[in-house]
């Protein structure tokens, strides 16, 4: 069974600081997604990482994927309050039943002024 673990689960940081959220998963996959969820809202797609070594950047967020280590990171640079949200990683698996995303528990990020 695929397990996806994120850490930290809760992150409080000051504006202007940098930090990294980690996503570890237990079985082979070459596709990983990062989503953002604001309170009471649905999930917004941030990044799709499709191969080993993939790196994508959007604004103050950068995501990377190391399929050999089964690890993805979401790096936050010079955080601003607007980044406060819950961030989920999700690992894609294709098996005989079909495909699905297995989600981590989420990292609740609070950026303080």
């Amino acid at each position, binding site marked *: 069974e695929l397990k996806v673990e994120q850490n930290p689960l809760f992150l409080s940081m000051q504006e202007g600081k940098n930090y990294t959220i980690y996503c570890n998963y237990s079985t082979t996959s070459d596709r990983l997604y990062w989503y953002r969820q604001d309170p009471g809202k649905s999930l917004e797609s941030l990044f799709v990482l499709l191969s080993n070594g993939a790196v994508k950047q959007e604004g103050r967020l950068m995501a990377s994927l190391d399929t050999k280590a089964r690890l993805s990171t979401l790096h936050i640079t010079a955080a601003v309050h607007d980044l406060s949200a819950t961030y989920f990683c999700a690992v894609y698996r294709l098996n005989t039943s079909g*495909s699905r*995303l297995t989600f981590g528990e989420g990292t609740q990020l609070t950026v303080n002024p």
Partner: protein
Amino acid sequence: GAGVSQSPSNKVTEKGKDVELRCDPISGHTALYWYRQSLGQGLEFLIYFQGNSAPDKSGLPSDRFSAERTGGSVSTLTIQRTQQEDSAVYLCASSRRTPNGYTFGSGTRLTVV
């Protein structure tokens, strides 16, 4: 439509009643997923539809849960004899067969009283 549409957005029901939740995916998206998100938790896979193939029902938590997808488009998730532990946000997502991303709907918040 432009996005994944779910209805109702909120549903309060009495314990023991049946409920139906609807999902209208993005036109042309052949894959459709139902997930459940309990308060403060990650997303739990429920069921997956891909085109005309048999659905992957392996995530349904009990035989009180069922889902169908008519004409490869709209899907209905039915919960019979609802229990308080069924209270959660039920999210639907759709994607193309070779997805670069899954688009989530806004969810249905179900409260069983």
